[in-house]
């Protein structure tokens, strides 16, 4: 059986094709302003990679904030359900999943069988999300790819007290003006994200093993800061950014 998962996030659209439990294609692109078009492009890319036609795909589940714009999907499921399924598939021992995406962060608690028992999401504010990091990278004149590694060089992280993205940006600009080292500022930003995420996680409780998914899991600085605040190792599945799409594809299989 071949199933497809499409995850339309606020920043990137992701998709995978699974043949039973084997991934046979995967794709990522920027979502842009038209979620429906992004989903269509992702699907075509997946079909090309696998050398398949759409009618050969048995079931499609869409997830992510743009899930209801994916007209060709058989079903739309929330990203929390799909991230949980994907994380359980990749890290069966996971009982807590931290997912930090472009504009929201979520903490998901799982049972041994991967079912979600509880979850919590950030509020309307984008502090502590991927968007927050993007704004900070711009303020520091660097790109996101080097952000994580650079922060590991820091010995004395700067204190970032604002949780508001805009006020934190002002704070960062002030620190730059004072001559604070860039790695210290970035480490301070990561510590701020980690503190906010752990406070959110404590609302539902943190039970090991802890896995992390979503685009921000690519940032080693945030991962290390989370480990420090949690006092627990954080496991990053391979292709963590595709976890939601993998979960969607798995749930598509289950539904068939």
């Amino acid at each position: 059986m071949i199933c497809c998962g499409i995850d339309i996030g606020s920043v990137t659209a992701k998709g995978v094709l699974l043949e039973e439990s084997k991934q046979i294609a995967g794709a990522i692109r920027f979502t842009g302003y038209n979620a429906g078009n992004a989903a269509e492009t992702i699907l075509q890319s997946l079909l090309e990679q696998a050398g398949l036609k759409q009618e050969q795909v048995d079931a499609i589940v869409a997830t992510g904030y743009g899930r209801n714009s994916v007209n060709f999907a058989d079903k739309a499921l929330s990203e929390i359900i799909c991230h949980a399924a994907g994380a359980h598939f990749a890290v069966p021992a996971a009982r807590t999943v931290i997912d930090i995406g472009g504009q929201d962060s979520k903490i998901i608690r799982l049972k041994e069988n991967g079912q979600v028992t509880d979850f919590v999401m950030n509020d309307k504010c984008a502090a502590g999300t991927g968007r927050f990091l993007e704004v900070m990278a711009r303020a520091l004149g660097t790109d996101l790819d080097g952000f994580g590694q650079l922060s590991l060089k820091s010995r004395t992280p700067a204190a970032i007290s604002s949780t508001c993205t805009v006020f934190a940006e002002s704070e960062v600009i002030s620190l730059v003006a004072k001559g604070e080292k860039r790695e210290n500022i970035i480490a301070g930003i990561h510590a701020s994200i980690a503190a906010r995420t752990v406070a959110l996680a404590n609302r539902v409780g943190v039970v090991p093993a802890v896995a992390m998914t979503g685009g921000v899991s690519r940032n080693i600085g945030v991962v290390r800061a989370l480990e420090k605040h949690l006092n627990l190792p954080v496991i990053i599945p391979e292709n963590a950014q595709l976890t939601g799409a993998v979960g969607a594809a798995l749930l598509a299989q289950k539904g068939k």
Partner: protein
Amino acid sequence: MNSTEIIEKFRTAARDPFHCVRSLKKEKHCPVVGYTCTYFPEEIVLAAEAHPLRLFGESGMVLKADAHIQAYGCSLARSVFEDALSGQLDFLDVMAFPHSCDTMQRLSDIWRLNIKNTVHLDLLFPVHLKSEAAGDYLKAVLERFKKELEQALQTEISGSALSGAISLTNRIRSALHSLYRIRAAAPERISGSDLNRVVRGCMILDRSTAADLLETLADELGSVNFPAGKQPVKRLLLSGGACLHPDIHDIIEQQGGAVVWDDLCTGNRYFDTPVPDGPSPVSAIAERFLDRAVCPAKHSGIDRRGKELSELVSKYEINGVIFLLLKFCDPHGFDYPDLKATLEEAGVPSLFLEVESGKPVDGPTRTRVETFLQILNQQEPMT
């Protein structure tokens, strides 16, 4: 009048309560008494031949109230005060503040300083409802309110008028209870959003009209035999303050769930427990306030709310509880962790939602509700 026409009357009232009450005042030449909380003796107002109007805050944009109440203050209080500052409540003759929570006490003071064209009354409710003095104290508070209202409206409230008003409000409570029981047995008979509008409409419409409409509606919806088997829906309970977002129900129902009971002041706490029979109508009204489902702004035993919630969950075979809180309601926020823990011990899943008075339900809130229903449905095969 059929059920669709009756429900439409409640929808119209909930959609534009001020227009509804302005028209009523013009037609009946009755004074209007605004109030902010279900700890309010509507019976005394009705006995004075005045019209009680519960204020829910109709202003979505808060432009003037921000100068008086911080943005992180209760969104209901800010919205209600915005209505007053923008002149939308100029038809009120009396504004009454039952001192329920701290915010409403402070709002009363701010209101008194800034809104000058109405008579301003306070009802200093007891906080500890089970203390020895609470009964006598509350009775004195209600007697004082009665006297102040008589002075304000230049009228005299007779014992028989008060007894008549108690009968009328008890009719409303009884009919609402019947409607809730119908919904609990057969959720498809009336949507959750319409039932929410019906309850809110009862606090807006002329109460005799509301009682007649409710009784006809309950008769009509209850006249069809209930289906033998249980409906294949996830049975939910809403717990919180005022539900001013009926579209929450639509999102829940789209995902295969149904709110079959609630613990809201726009629901169960409004109609729970009739005013008992008694030699003194005022004592009987006081007695009801001490006994009815308690609000978190009052103390009635350290674990009473948890016990009441657990009883509702068990009685109505609830699969999950959604805590629906208005931003930034402190009393409900303080109670939430203990109530959640109580439910967890009983193995009942729950979801926490915070919404803002006057603002539509946003995308992340929709995602939370959808996820919660999908979690409850996890055991079932996908369709």
